Structures are given as structure tokens and as C-alpha cells.
């Protein structure tokens, strides 16, 4: 790694000499901050994203860098500690003077970084599906908003599986809380009675699932089709799915759709008893496209392990990084405001086919896929929609229904269309 950087440093010097004209207002090298936890509880998910970023940067450098400059990754380890995210973000922006940062997994860590970004006017790419209700001037959300994952999955439950009674199981933190709130409100608007919605929250890493799974089974006692919408996070899924399998609950009896279970999580367990359960994402490793095959091959080569899987947040970084590269090229500078403006309407092909478009509310427009778990831990894509534009403020909660984000025309991330005022320019952390 170090070697390649050094070598390409030489190449960069040559490039600078050649392209001095168009690199006038760019300081070489262009620095890219990577702020993913490499230790602590979130390392399990975030280390992969750090590696993805290093791979993308390496590839970009091999392709000749950006604006005649070499890209340099600055990696920090916020150790799954939310205050450390704020501290490291400040270090990245003010000490290392990075031009853009890719980072965070949990919402709490993103919210910790937000005030620093807005204060120092920096650029940040957030790659994970999240609960919405936010649109910061300085953040581009390349993961799914609720209307790009939760709502279509719920529609699939209602229309395709005929589910009449819902168990919303989640880990107790902000993403499941807000998502379940939105879903409850959405389900009620679809005519599901309040007593037909069972909500349960468990702590991180929960492992004793027998009672909860029995409770879910007992929901079927009034003859309605029961379905589980799971926002269970990380390791806790392993115990949950093992218990499902142990109690012999097949996807035909009680289907489970998960929003936080991807290829990476399934690699931690034997999926032969889970065949047919579902997950909703914007990307699955089994997506059939040339770009995806290339991406997977590049990933395997970079990481040196054929068994490693790819997942949705990796695609989000892939799209986000390439869009940023194109935006910088379009703007001719790495200046934050110029790049932000160039980002609006930026297009880049998805790995699943089709094109992702960055909206003026800083959310992507992407197709929604539903996959069924296979015995080999992969997903069969059984449904995919047209691209859905991400909605920063959900339409299904009364408080946020009138809110809108438009950084281009309205220059506001939280615009109240009823009173026609900008509620606030900076974010509510």
C-alpha cells in the first residue's frame, strides 16, 4: 500500500508538471478523509467500508488521479465512540485539511460529526441506509432513506405477501425507532389497526430470542397473516435467525424482512434454515451486471480473499466516490461549495444496472431491491422497482410531512411548505 502510494507519488509529480494549467486552484495531493471505526463494536461493519474507500482511491490513482493530482487517503479510527467521531472529524478537516470525507455507519456517529462539518463547511459522504429526517448542507446521503427501503419493503409485505399483522422488531437505537415510527404511521394509513402492530426493542448484541420469537408466533392466533419487519442490528441478528430456525419458522409461515441484514451479516451463520426470508436493499451481490462483476473482481483482488462479500453500503461508497470525482472534475476545483453545486444532478451508473442521480436534497435516486435469502448466504433478487428518489423528510409523519429539502432553489434543508419558511439552515442534531 505504502509502496504504491510512493510510486504513484512520482507519477503524480509528472502529472502535475503536465497538467499545471488545470490544477491551478487545487493543492496536490487531494486528500480524502476516511472516518470509519476500525475498533470497537462497529468495526465489524465499518472496516469493510474503509477498505472499500482505499480500493476506490487506489483505482482512481491508477487511472490518473484527479485534476492532475494524486489522491491521498487519510484514515482515522474513531473507535466506535461517538464523541471521538466529532474529534477526529475536526482533526481531519482542520489539521489534515482533507477535501472530502467518507465515513460513519450509525446515525449517532453521523449526528456527532454534523455540527463540526457545518461549522467548518466540509463535505461528507454517508453510505448507510438511515432513518431520514435530516438534510444537511454538508452531507451527501448515498444510503437509502426510509422511502427507498422501509416503505417499499412494507408495500411488498402488504401487496405481495398479504401480511395483515406486523411485528416490528428492532435494536434500541435511533434508526429502528424512527423507522418503526414511520412504518407504524404508514401502516395505519394503509388500514392496519394499531393492535395488529407489535413493536419490540432489544439491546445491541441481544442473544436470548426465544421468548420474543414465541410472542411473534402467538400473534397468529387471530388468523391473520403475520410478518416481521426487522431493524435488528449487527450481531444480534445471528441469535435471532438461529432461534427462528430452531423454532421451525419458515418464510412461508412468517416471513421476515430485514433492513440491516446483508451479505456481510449472513456470512456469520448457516443460512440453510433461513431460505426464503427477505431483505430490502438497493444492492445485492448477486445483481447481474458487468459493472458489478468488475466491482466484485476488483474487491477480491484488493482484499486478497475470494470469500469476501460485497454489500449495499459498499455500493453506496462506490457511487458516492465516483460522483464526487466527477463533480470535482466538473467544478475544476475541490472547493467545497463549488463541488456541492456540481454534485446536484450528478449521475452515475448503479452496480445493479440503471443510473443513480443525486438530488438537490442531497439524497440519491436508486432502485429498491427485495431479495430472498439463499442457502449459500446470498440473495435472490425477486423484486426491483424503478429508481426512487430519496426523501429527506418522510411524508408519513405529521410533523415532517410539510417539510422539504432543496439546496438548489430554496437553499434550505428544512423548508416548511405550509408556512413557506426555512425552519433552519443548520441541522438539528
Amino acid at each position, binding site marked *: 500500500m*505504502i509502496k504504491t502510494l510512493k510510486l504513484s507519488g512520482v507519477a503524480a509529480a509528472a502529472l502535475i508538471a503536465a497538467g499545471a494549467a488545470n490544477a491551478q486552484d487545487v493543492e496536490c495531493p487531494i486528500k480524502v478523509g476516511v472516518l470509519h471505526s*476500525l*475498533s470497537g463494536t462497529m468495526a465489524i461493519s465499518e472496516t469493510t467500508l474503509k477498505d472499500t474507500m482505499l480500493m476506490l482511491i487506489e483505482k482512481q490513482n491508477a487511472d490518473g488521479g484527479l485534476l492532475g493530482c494524486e489522491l491521498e487517503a*487519510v*484514515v*482515522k*479510527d*474513531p*473507535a466506535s*465512540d*461517538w*464523541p*471521538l467521531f*466529532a*474529534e*477526529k472529524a*475536526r*482533526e481531519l478537516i*482542520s*489539521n489534515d485539511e482533507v477535501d472530502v470525507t467518507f465515513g460513519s455507519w450509525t*446515525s*449517532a456517529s453521523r*449526528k*456527532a460529526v*454534523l*455540527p*463540526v462539518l457545518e*461549522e467548518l463547511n466540509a463535505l461528507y459522504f454517508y453510505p448507510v441506509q438511515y432513518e431520514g*429526517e435530516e438534510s444537511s448542507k454538508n452531507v451527501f446521503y448515498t444510503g437509502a432513506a426510509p422511502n427507498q427501503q422501509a416503505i417499499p419493503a412494507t408495500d411488498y409485505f402488504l401487496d405481495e405477501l398479504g401480511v395483515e399483522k406486523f411485528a416490528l422488531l428492532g435494536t*434500541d*437505537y*435511533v434508526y429502528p*425507532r*424512527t423507522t*418503526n*415510527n*414511520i412504518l407504524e404511521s404508514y401502516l395505519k394509513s394503509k388500514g392496519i389497526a394499531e393492535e395488529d402492530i407489535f413493536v419490540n*426493542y432489544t*439491546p445491541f448484541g441481544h442473544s436470548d430470542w426465544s421468548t420474543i420469537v414465541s410472542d411473534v408466533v402467538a400473534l397468529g392466533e387471530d388468523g391473520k397473516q403475520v410478518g416481521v419487519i426487522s431493524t435488528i442490528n449487527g450481531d444480534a441478528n445471528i441469535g435471532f435467525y438461529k432461534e427462528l430456525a430452531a423454532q421451525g419458522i419458515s418464510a412461508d409461515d412468517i416471513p421476515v424482512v430485514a433492513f440491516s441484514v446483508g451479505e456481510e451479516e449472513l456470512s456469520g451463520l448457516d443460512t440453510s434454515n433461513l431460505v426464503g426470508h427477505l431483505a430490502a436493499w438497493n444492492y445485492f451481490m448477486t445483481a447481474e451486471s458487468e459493472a458489478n462483476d468488475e466491482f466484485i473482481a476488483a474487491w477480491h483482488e484488493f482484499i486478497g480473499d475470494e470469500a469476501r462479500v460485497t454489500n449495499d453500503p459498499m455500493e453506496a461508497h462506490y457511487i458516492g466516490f465516483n460522483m464526487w470525482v466527477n463533480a470535482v472534475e466538473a467544478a475544476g476545483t475541490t472547493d467545497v461549495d463549488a463541488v456541492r453545486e456540481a454534485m446536484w444532478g450528478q449521475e452515475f451508473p448503479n452496480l445493479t444496472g440503471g443510473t443513480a442521480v443525486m438530488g438537490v436534497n442531497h439524497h440519491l435516486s436508486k432502485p429498491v431491491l427485495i431479495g430472498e435469502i439463499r442457502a449459500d448466504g446470498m440473495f435472490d433478487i425477486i423484486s426491483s422497482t424503478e429508481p426512487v428518489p430519496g426523501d429527506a423528510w418522510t411524508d408519513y*409523519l405529521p*410533523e*415532517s410531512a410539510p417539510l422539504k429539502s432543496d439546496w438548489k432553489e430554496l437553499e434550505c434543508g428544512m423548508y*416548511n411548505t405550509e*408556512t413557506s*419558511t*426555512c*425552519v*433552519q439552515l443548520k441541522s*438539528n*442534531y
Partner: protein
Amino acid sequence: MTRTFLTQNRSVFWFLLALGIFALIVTVLSEAAGNGMISTSFVKTLGKTLCLMLVAVAMDVVWGYTGILSLGHMAFFGLGGYMIGMWLMYARTEIIVTESLLAAAIPPTPQEIHDSIGTQIFGVVGSSEFPAVWIFAHSFWLQIAMVVLVPGLLALVFGWLAFRSRVTGVYLSILTQAMTLALSLYLFQNESGLRGNNGLSGLQNLPGLDDVPQATLSIAFFWASAVALGLGYVLFAWVTSGKFGSVIRGIRDNESRVRFLGYHVEGYKLFVFTLTGIVAGIAGALYYPQAGIINPNEIAPIASIYLAVWVAIGGRGRLYGAALGAAFVSLLSSWFTSGAVPSVPLGFYTIQWTDWWLVLLGVSFVAVTLLAPKGIGGLFDLVTTRHPVPERIGDFGPDKGARRTVEGEEEK
């Protein structure tokens, strides 16, 4: 009194002097002074470290002087942070909301303002109602009082229950650990009304001070932390000197004997426990506005264990040792996780410090405990004429006992 106090505690003078000089140097070199040798983020780190030093000094009084190994003092630290955080969030949101509502055609009622603040703060966790615990959040002074009262009361009640039933030693440690675990689990729940896992955030933006750059704010907080540390140091030096200090050291060394001498041991312990709890709360209230966010993870049991480790590495039974230990380990930790430490290529394997730092830290705990029980503070004994802390002679442990060949000596 002052004269004797200072002569008895020469470390106070040197500590305050060093702290003062350090604070001045940092200020001069900071961005706020236009120099910029020390970045704002590093000033914040230093300010936070000062707060950690304060809570470590408090911990030293509890553990090093009184012999209570509390594994729950970070709970008080966190509670202090939560209390100040509630006011910071409320007041900041109030300004935003009032501005936005005043833009509407009809002026808002106080109830509307209150409700909108609720929606803004709790929208993140899918609620809009103000829980009862926020009752004082609108008032700065009431909430400041809570910074002292809430940790103090918790320490008082918990300490009273625990000491009354004579829970001591390891059991007390586990009990305090259970306390901090219960508190963090409680706060993790949304029902607790403090935004669950998300915690309180954006605390570095002081309400009404939007125009003041963070460079200036960080120096202000740095100084506030330095002053708090200085005062706390003097307070604890005073507490641990004199007769009171002798009694608590007596409790540490042999609780029963002190009790038989007629001292009300429980009262002394409770006082120390509560006082240090309050100081920890104040330290937390200064720490979290600099950190910017507080969430229940901050008071998970591991945080308090780290606190004990800092004190152990710094050297128990001397206040400056605890302070140095906290500074040393937390700054080192920050340095190693920053990715700035060069990797060590071994040919067959490259040691990336982000991967190996915790291993190094863990091994050094063991090494310090085994080889240098006096910690970093012990180094000062080499250069000062100060009487070393007398060796405590306990029993020789079950591994030796009667197999010893010479009475009272280690078997070779």
C-alpha cells in the same frame, strides 16, 4: 492554616504552577491567539483531558486514599454531562424555533414554542413530547444546580445503601459496576426521555454564541477546565491532608480497626463517595460541551474501568499521579488511534497501530500492575527527597504461607 497546608502538600504548589504554565503556553499557541501552532481540535482534546484528570483525581481520593475501588464513577461524570447537555440542547433549539415561529403570520404561544422545541429535540427518536426529566431544562441556573444535585444525590443514596449494609471490597466494586450498567441501560431506552442511544448532541454550539468561533470557545472551555482541575486539586489535597485524611487512609488500610477506634467509618466513606461523585459530575459538565455529544455508551462499565486504570498507571495514593496517569493514557490513546503513528514493518507482518494499540495498552496494564505498582507517580520518588509512600504489608497470600523459610520475607 494555608501555610501549614501548603508546606504539608508541596505537590499542590508545583501542580498549580505546572498547570498554570501549561495553560498559558497552550493559550498563546492556540488559534484563538492567532498563532495556530496548536489546532482547535487539539485544544479541545487538551481541555477534555483536563476534565479527565479532574475525575481521575477524584477517583484517586476514593480508591487510592479511601480504598473503595469504585467502578461507577464515570456514571456521575456522564450524569453531569447529561444535565448540562439538556440545557444546551433546549436553549439552542429554543432560539432556532422561536426565530422560525416568529416568521409566521401569527405570533406563537408559549405552549407552541415549547411543543416545537419538543418536536425538534425528540423528532430524532420519533416522539415530540417533553418527558418529565426535562422540567428544569429551560433554566440555566436550575440545570446547573442539577449538575451538582443529580450526581450528588445518586452517590449519596447509592453510597448510603451500600455502606450501611457493609458491602466492601470486591463486592462493592461489582455493585458500583452494576450501578453504572443499570444507569447506562436505562438511558439506552427511549423511555428514559434522554434520546436513547442517540444521546444529546451538538453540545459544542453554545446557545446565543453562534458568532463566537470555536477557536475562542475551545480556549474558554480549556481555561474553565484548568481552573476546575486546579480548584479540585486543592480541594482534594485539603481533604486528604490533616486528620480527615488520616482517618480515610486508616479506613483504607484496616477498616475494622478504625471502626473499633470509634470512628463512624460509614459516614467518612459516604462523604468521600458523594463529594467525589459531585466533582465527577462537574468534570463531566465541562467535558461534554467540548466533546459535543453524550450518549449512554459513555457511562458503560468499561469507561469506569478505564478510569481505574488511569489512576493505577498514574500511581494511587498521590493526587498528581492520578492526574498524570489520566493525561498520559488518554493522550497516548488519542495519538495511537489517530493513525499518525508509523507502522512497524517486521518483514513478514506489518504492525498497524490501529490494530495493535489495544493489545499494547492491555499488556502495559499488566506490566504496570506487576512491575511498577506505584505507577508513573513513582518516578517522582526518584528525584524528590519526599518520603516514599510506606509499603503496606498485608498477609503474604495463599501461595506462600507456611512454606516460607524465613519469617516475613519473600521466598526466593
